[in-house]
């Protein structure tokens, strides 16, 4: 939390200096929103560059929809600003902002056919009939719906309707495209197909886009950058690679797919975890000797071996006993109980000691491991097997001093 806040301020400072640079197509500054007494958004700031796709990722109730509606002008912020291409639009009504919103329900006008829907923005702008026809023709070609131009929305599939919705907003050359859970109503196959299509389309038209979604896979694939939202604030903002592999908070780590979390203690250039020493280069300003930390790693970051022979780059953490082997199509998932306990931090004031109790008598910690097919085939494992566990990559997160703050 503390880290996330300090990070936010960092981002704030960074972006303030770049507010007026031409590459920022859309930015929000210090956005907050309240409904009654409860705060929905707290000090939200981010920038979207020209042609960039930013994904706001969060669970329902995290405030992502509210941010989108505020940018669109459908809701007013309590504090903060919305800036589109250097113009402060916070006080402007939705119709004067020139943003394109693709609603989850598509919101196509049911009594207008595809052509009429796409041309709507130009018709109400009183453009010449010829200009409207040319634009509509061009957009129909772009979204590949030429043969459906006379159809009504109810006669189109979900994917086609969404393409009409996008074309309808592109017709008036929006400053930014806002996608509200764009694939929520579609089945998995169409969804994957469609998001590749939209990604390609956005590259073609070079319009900045903000997506909101609760689907982490979607976020990682669609976004040039991803902002992870939790309870109305941004936990972390970064490239998909950064937020997946270097999560700034425990929330980010666990929200983006499965994550194992073990507690450890900082000892010089090492971390003491489950009785083993893990070499780690740590930021001396953030971590001091004796500090308790969390070690976060993905199930695919763990290497399981039967002997003590480790491959280079992997660091041993513990040995464990396989509790469960599950086959999940593309890979295999193991549930492994650690043989050594990881309670160094439970009694922070007491000095570190070695216990003589057998591992079985103490509460055990389990972690989850995934292995690819080749790996699983090289070393077959079954329930009850004793294995050595090593990490190829991990992230270290500080534990706030107050013990209550652990959720």
């Amino acid at each position: 939390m503390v880290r996330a806040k300090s990070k936010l301020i960092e981002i704030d400072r960074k972006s303030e200096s770049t507010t007026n640079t031409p590459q920022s197509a859309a930015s929000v500054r210090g956005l907050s929103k309240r409904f009654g007494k409860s705060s929905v958004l707290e000090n939200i700031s981010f920038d979207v560059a020209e042609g960039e796709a930013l994904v706001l990722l969060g669970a329902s109730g995290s405030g992502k929809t509210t941010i989108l509606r505020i940018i669109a002008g459908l809701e007013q912020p309590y504090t903060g600003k919305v800036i589109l291409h250097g113009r402060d639009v916070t006080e402007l009504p939705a119709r004067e902002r020139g943003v394109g919103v693709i609603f989850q329900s598509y919101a196509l006008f049911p009594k207008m056919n595809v052509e009429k829907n796409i041309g709507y923005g130009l018709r109400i702008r009183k453009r010449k009939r010829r200009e409207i026809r040319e634009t509509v023709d061009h957009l129909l070609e772009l979204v590949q719906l030429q043969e459906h131009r006379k159809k009504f929305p109810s006669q189109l599939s979900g994917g086609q309707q969404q393409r009409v919705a996008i074309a309808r907003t592109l017709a008036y050359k929006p400053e930014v495209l806002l996608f509200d859970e764009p694939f929520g109503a579609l089945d998995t196959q169409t969804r994957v197909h469609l998001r590749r299509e939209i990604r390609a389309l956005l590259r073609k038209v070079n319009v900045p886009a903000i997506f909101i979604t609760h689907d982490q896979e979607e976020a990682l694939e669609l976004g040039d950058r991803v902002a992870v939202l939790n309870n109305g604030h941004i936990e972390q903002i970064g490239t998909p690679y950064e937020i997946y592999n270097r999560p700034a908070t425990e929330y980010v780590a666990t929200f983006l797919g499965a994550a194992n979390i073990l507690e450890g203690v900082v000892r010089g250039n090492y971390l003491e975890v489950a009785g083993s020493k893990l070499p780690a280069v740590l930021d001396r300003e953030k971590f001091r000797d004796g500090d308790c930390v969390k070690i976060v790693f993905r199930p695919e970051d763990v290497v399981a071996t039967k002997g003590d022979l480790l491959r280079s780059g992997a660091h041993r953490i513990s040995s464990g006993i396989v509790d469960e082997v599950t086959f999940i199509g593309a890979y295999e998932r193991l549930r492994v109980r650690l043989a050594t306990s990881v309670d160094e931090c439970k009694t922070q004031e007491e000095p570190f000691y070695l216990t003589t109790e057998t591992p079985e008598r103490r509460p055990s910690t389990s972690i989850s491991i995934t292995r690819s097919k080749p790996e699983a085939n090289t070393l077959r494992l079954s329930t009850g097997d004793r294995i050595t566990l090593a990490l190829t990559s991990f992230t270290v997160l500080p534990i706030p001093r107050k013990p209550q703050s652990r959720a």
Partner: protein
Amino acid sequence: MRHVRGFDVVRPLSIGMLILMMLPLVFLPLLSIFVFGTRNGLGTFWNALVAPEAVFALKLSMATSFWATVFNVLFGLFASYVLSRYHFWGRNALIVTISLPTAIPTAVAGFALLLLWGPYGVLGRFLAPHGIQLMFTAGAIILANIFVTFPLAFGVIKPVFDTMNRSLEEASATIGATRWQTFWHVTLPSLRGAIVSGALLTFARAVGEFGSTILVSGNLAGRTQTAPLYIFAKFNEGQIEAANAIAIVLALFSFLIFSVLFFARDWLDVD
């Protein structure tokens, strides 16, 4: 033999019983209008129909019902818009009040209008000295029609408003439309079916209105006598043929309106 075993006796019996019950209650009364009306030949029927007073009564009914319908549809649209968009204190009280006129006996409605606008009425007494007389005119008939059909169009339009997807209007706004453009291009087309049904219902009900009309119109033949009043008057005078001719027209007219409402339902509800 298998089809005999599967034969459901209840089916033809229940259908037969339904028709049997409707026979004396609905079918026979309607049928007798046509039987009596054409008993003396179509010539008599036609003569009764084109009598100046009869034609006037029919025209007056249509005209007064038309204006009452126009008003109530516009009002219904406006009231639906306000009451489904905004939530405010007293909103439910307003909804109940709008719906009230259908529950009030029509004679009471007519009486109430008289007490308000009549020469000695609450407001009428201030108008009378200026020579303004609202009661016993076509205007009074329109007022009575508006009152008794007040909630009909509203009742059809409001549910459609309530269930309408708000993101359609939001989409229109973000595309750049003003509130009026959004209403005209997006909201109104979605209400087309409800507006047509509401108008037909209101019109059908207004054409047949009797109880309130007889009180406020004065029932002056050739001046304020509507079709239902004409039927009543001619019946009292013993001119059964004259009453019957108009009765046939009104019955056919209602039949037509409700057929449209029933069979054009798909067209009216297209999304």
